């Protein structure tokens, strides 16, 4: 320091000492313990991050990508055929009947909305809790959220029967009175919750993308690529004034999105909980649904990221430690879900209400018992294996368990919806739901839409948040 000072020489010595003290005071930065595990592969530098992540976009897609993309597009096409069939001939093409008015459509809707909860959980809640490991996975998890919410949105719109009039659920001045929407209905709350959730998740995701799009822009060689990223990156130049406000707004959005995540599935659960149907009319529903949503969402993120990190060689960014952490959250939320199942059983019997008791016995031993036990084992029993470190660090085991969770969570919604409806108060109207080809086509098609959009995301946008990863490179180094 002394030699450096001599180089600059200034006023008098006292003044100089005061100045040095002041410089040290304003530039003091927190020192992370060198004992911490690094978050990212230790050998990476900032330019390595840029080259690794942008390089993925600049190389032509791998053959594996084309194969997966083709399969997804085929599935999507099947879904489109089913959708056209539904719109042309009406909801009668679904397996619904007078007793069971909600089945696959609403199951798929709740399933996809649930999947959509992990992205914002990772980007908002883990951000507020200062969990720096989120930086490697938040981009892809947020993209997954947006796509899942789109998949979810398809189902209520098709279920309306006349989807071209879906905008009638918006309260706008009209020539019918104005006849307003019914603000007392949970189905309307759903519309507000999901559209707000989609919008906020979209701007949150985009805001995080802008600096990375600028990185892609500054490397772009071809004309069209440069135009694409120039438009999307909004002239981002990395100035501190911009960063400062950006960080403020990012924090504001995280603070807003946190209660929003919790509100969305709570409101979805109100669709059921505010009714008088045994098995639905329960105050446990909002927390039970939210935990289930985060649970299924994390399982889906893990299911997607394991092949992505392998194929795109991102093992240095999405490390075993990341997968381990995600498994722990899956374990926690899965245990909450398991506890909710048991609570539901206990309260059902404790209520002494014969209808409640009947619904529970019917779920466990009725015609849909197989679905109930798939749900129970996949959600409440198998994820308990995540207590063992081997199951959180061995890739095939993680993948297997996460796929089981995805299956289990789909069946959870199916069980809640169909088993509560199919045997109601009037035994003469008891019925069985059998899905038609159109039902199955829409389910398969929603997966097609999901994977098609996710694969396009992998090609068009930086899959890992480069600016955030660069910020944590020094996490355990200096």
């Amino acid at each position, binding site marked *: 320091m002394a030699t450096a000072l001599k*180089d*600059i020489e*200034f006023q008098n010595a006292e003044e100089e000492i005061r*100045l040095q003290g*002041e*410089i040290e005071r*304003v*530039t*003091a*930065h*927190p020192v992370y313990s060198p004992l911490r595990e690094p978050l990212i592969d230790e050998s990476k*530098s*900032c*330019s390595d991050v*840029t080259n690794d992540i942008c390089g993925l976009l600049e190389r032509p897609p791998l053959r594996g990508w084309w194969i997966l993309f083709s399969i997804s597009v085929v599935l999507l096409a099947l879904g489109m055929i089913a959708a056209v069939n539904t719109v042309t001939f009406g909801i009668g093409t679904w397996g619904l009947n007078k007793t069971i008015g909600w089945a696959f459509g609403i199951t798929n809707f709740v399933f996809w909305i649930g999947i959509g909860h992990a992205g914002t959980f990772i980007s908002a809640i883990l951000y507020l809790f200062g969990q720096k490991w989120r930086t490697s996975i938040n981009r892809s998890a947020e993209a997954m959220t947006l796509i899942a919410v789109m998949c979810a949105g398809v189902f209520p719109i098709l279920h309306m029967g006349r989807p071209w009039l879906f905008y009638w659920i918006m*309260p706008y001045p009209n020539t019918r009175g104005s006849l*307003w929407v*019914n603000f*007392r209905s*949970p189905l*309307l709350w759903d519309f*507000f*919750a999901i559209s*707000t959730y989609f*919008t*906020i998740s979209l*701007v*949150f995701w985009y*805001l995080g993308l*802008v*600096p990375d799009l*600028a990185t892609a822009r*500054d490397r772009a060689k071809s004309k069209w690529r440069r135009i694409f990223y120039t438009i*999307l990156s*909004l*002239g*981002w*130049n*990395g*100035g*501190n*004034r*911009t*960063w*400062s*406000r*950006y*960080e*403020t*707004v990012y924090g*504001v*959005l995280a603070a*807003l999105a946190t*209660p929003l995540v919790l*509100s969305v599935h709570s*409101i979805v659960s109100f669709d059921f909980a505010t009714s008088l149907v045994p098995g639905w009319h329960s105050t446990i529903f909002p927390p039970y649904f939210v935990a289930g949503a985060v649970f299924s969402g994390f399982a889906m993120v893990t299911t997607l990221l394991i092949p992505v990190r392998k194929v795109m060689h991102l093992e240095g960014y999405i490390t075993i430690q990341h997968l381990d952490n995600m498994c722990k959250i899956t374990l926690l939320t899965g245990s909450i879900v398991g506890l909710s199942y048991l609570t539901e059983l206990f309260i059902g019997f404790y209520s002494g209400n014969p209808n409640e008791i009947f619904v529970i016995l019917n779920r466990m031993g009725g015609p849909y018992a197989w679905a109930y036990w798939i749900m129970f084992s996949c959600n409440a029993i198998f994820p308990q294996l995540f207590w063992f470190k081997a199951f959180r660090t061995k890739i095939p085991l993680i993948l297997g368990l996460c796929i089981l969770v995805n299956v289990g969570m789909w069946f959870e919604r199916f069980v809640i919806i169909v088993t509560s409806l199919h045997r109601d108060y009037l035994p003469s109207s008891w019925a069985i739901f059998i899905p038609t080809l159109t039902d199955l086509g829409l389910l398969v098609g929603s997966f097609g839409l999901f994977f098609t959009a996710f694969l396009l995301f992998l090609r068009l946008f930086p899959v890992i948040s*480069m*600016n955030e990863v*660069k*910020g944590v490179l020094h996490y355990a180094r200096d």
Partner: protein
Amino acid sequence: MRATEPSEKTVRYTAAFFDNEHDLMAIAAEARLRGFEIQDVFSPYPIHGMDRAVGLERSRLGWIAFAAGALGLISAILLQVWTSAYDWPLNVGGKPFNSFPLFVPVMFELTVLFSGLISIGVLFMMNRLWIFSKKKIFEGVTDDHFVLVLKQRDASFDAEKAARLFKKYRAIKVMEGDKFV
């Protein structure tokens, strides 16, 4: 501290490039305390504590977000109470026309929606981020370079002193430019 005043567009600048955030932060602090006027600093990621180093006051965007949220809340209350209880009251299942507790979910959602969209809109406006933006972009700043830009507003700019400062903090490149957009 506004970078957008028209007279400033003709001010010459000196830009120094560094290869790490600590040098940038230290030189930014030292340059400011020694009387240089900092145009801005540029980095590939947000650097915590940089605001304090360059003497930037805390952003008031948080208050804007709060006000926008309040606006959303009030709009939601007015919309729901007016449409359900005044403009065309409808009896739905015998519930009161003004079923205030049932209006809470939409109130919450619109609060979040207004606050989020308005604060991001204000962010884009304040930083002039838009699709036809023509801002100066320093080479490598979105990759791994860290840049300090000093204004040369008048003759008081001591180029020699600046050069010594750049050397002290191991600048990898120094360049000058005419106007800063």
